[in-house]
């Protein structure tokens, strides 16, 4: 077994919403290996962002929200870390890039000030060295005029430029794990392609690992080696990207792929999935996808499907697949 950077084992998260405690993540397990880009894909409310927040220990309610499971980062369980210990890990060993760079940058400080601040929090170096390091990082993300960008305020930069700055900042302490939460959703396709290429090149050069969260299967297919498909707080299918996107086994993954307009063919029919993604709060017995599933059987509404593992570590949570075996 290869050594992992991050191992999530049976993670279960409860969050307080509307005065009640709701289970938002159900028994999630996955691994991230060194140098790989793992995709987390799902629709809104599937628990992608909660998973990211749990890994970074940024859940409201702190680690009390984690009611079960382990988050093993380089062998250490993050669930037992104190806030101060986490502070030292966040930004240094693991970093995060958010969807909207405008809201994750401070509008009243220049890029340079914020950049130097991050570097000096984690590294014992002089201001001058930090500035030099920041400029190098900005050059590394191919920003044409790095000195000017260094002195700019976030509002002076375009969306694509801000996202480059975010990637540079996240990489500044060479973290071994980067979590990118829908980093290109707010951008135009041409800029998106640039950012994806950049992200891939940075990972290759630094040998860090990335958890790439997205709802776009096209982006996942272009960037990731393995993917976990999430639905309503569960991972329902998990494995190598090519296998899952070309030969999906779970009815949800299949339906999701059929509901995307295909760019390369002329077809004019699109199969939609009836109904909507259930509310996080919905209490449900059995498989969480069964009300919308085209292949549901009687057992699906009664009992949770047991995970099945096919060759190449292809994991599926579905009664139909487990019965066929």
């Amino acid at each position, binding site marked *: 077994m290869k050594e992992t950077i991050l191992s999530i084992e049976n993670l279960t998260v409860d969050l307080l919403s509307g005065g009640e405690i709701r289970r938002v993540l159900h028994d999630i397990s996955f691994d991230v290996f060194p140098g790989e880009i793992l995709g987390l894909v799902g629709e809104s409310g599937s628990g992608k962002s909660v998973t990211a927040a749990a890994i970074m220990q940024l859940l409201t309610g702190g680690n009390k929200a984690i009611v079960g499971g382990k988050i093993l980062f380089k062998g250490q369980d993050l669930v037992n870390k104190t806030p101060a210990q986490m502070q030292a890990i966040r930004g240094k060993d693991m970093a995060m890039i958010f969807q909207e760079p405008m809201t994750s940058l401070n509008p009243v400080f220049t890029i340079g000030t914020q950049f130097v601040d991050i570097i000096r929090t984690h590294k014992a170096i002089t201001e001058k060295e930090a500035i030099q390091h920041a400029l190098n990082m900005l050059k590394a993300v191919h*920003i044409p005029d790095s000195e000017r960008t260094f002195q700019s305020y976030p509002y002076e930069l375009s969306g694509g430029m801000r996202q480059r700055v975010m990637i540079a900042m996240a990489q500044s302490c060479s973290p071994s794990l980067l979590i990118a939460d829908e980093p290109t959703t707010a951008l135009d396709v041409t800029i*998106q392609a640039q950012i994806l290429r950049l992200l*891939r090149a940075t990972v290759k050069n630094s040998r860090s690992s990335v958890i790439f969260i997205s709802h776009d299967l096209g982006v996942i297919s272009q960037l990731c080696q393995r993917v976990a498909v999430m639905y309503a707080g569960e991972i329902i299918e998990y494995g190598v990207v090519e296998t899952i*996107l070309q030969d999906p086994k779970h009815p949800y993954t299949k339906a*999701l792929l059929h*509901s995307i307009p*295909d760019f390369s063919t002329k077809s004019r029919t699109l199969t939609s999935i009836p109904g909507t993604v259930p509310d996080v709060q919905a209490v449900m017995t059995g498989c969480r996808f069964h009300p919308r599933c085209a292949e549901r059987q009687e057992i699906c509404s009664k009992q949770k499907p047991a995970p099945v593992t096919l060759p190449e570590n292809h994991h599926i949570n579905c009664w139909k697949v487990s019965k066929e075996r």
Partner: protein
Amino acid sequence: MTNLLELKMVEKYFTKRSFLEKTQTIRAVDGVSLTLHKGETLGIVGESGCGKSTLASLILRLEKPTSGQILLGGTDIAQFSEDQLRPLRSRIQIVFQDPYSSLNPRFTARQIVAEPMRVIRKWKPREIDEKVVRLLELVGLSKEHLHRYPHEFSGGQRQRLSIARALTNDPEILILDEPTSALDVSVQAQVLNLLQQLQTDLGLSYIFISHNLAVVKYVSDRVAVMYFGKIVELGAVEDVMLHPLHPYTKELIGAVPVIGRPLSEVDLSYQEQKNAAGLSAGCLYYLRCPLAKKHCLEKTITLLEYAAGHQVACLEMENSK
């Protein structure tokens, strides 16, 4: 096919005045000519800031064009006054991108759908009630939803409600401004299929604005590609999407993330939408264009027909002809 709507050299300039700097003119829509036939879907694609949404407000006459003609069924409405426009308003309706901000949160579904009918005062109260129920059923909602407020609906249902509202006064043209961008993919398919069903049943014509090329390709009959207020390519959907001629269209299509197609390995340096208009006359795409040559900046480039119904604004194409 008849021309339901025709735009002739429509221009919209905004002036930006600031205290210390020079007054700037922004050409949001710059000499756009296009036609919409009855029963067809015209897709408009382009990156943010290319003037797609300004074009929509001009067609709706929410904005007055700086110059040019907007012919609705043969009548030029470009310079019509508010009073002249009122009887025509119900012929063109719009569905907005964000179903969360485009529905009044204090209105029930019934009030939302009935409001346009109340405004034009053509209908009796009983007729309104009947029509609201019929419209809700038409878009896949039901009677039970009548008295619910927007927050009780999901994103997809809200967008259905927006569509029902747009259909109340029997429009001929619907402008769909990124109608599915805020929706989940599984729900997006439902709304797209509903729109196609309605088009067949009611004989509607659509102007479908989106930055998502795959969606535009799925719904449109013809497509216009916009760059900095100008149309750079226009033609049948298969021609434009499968055999693009303009280098900008090629760049856009190349950037669409397609499952199984590897990410292209071009340069990593930052490039954004650039406007070469400040330099001189000529092609606006000059600064980004891989085929850019000196002569591209020397003359004004017009949209020319390259093949039947396929128009391109590019000197390279003009020369190769």
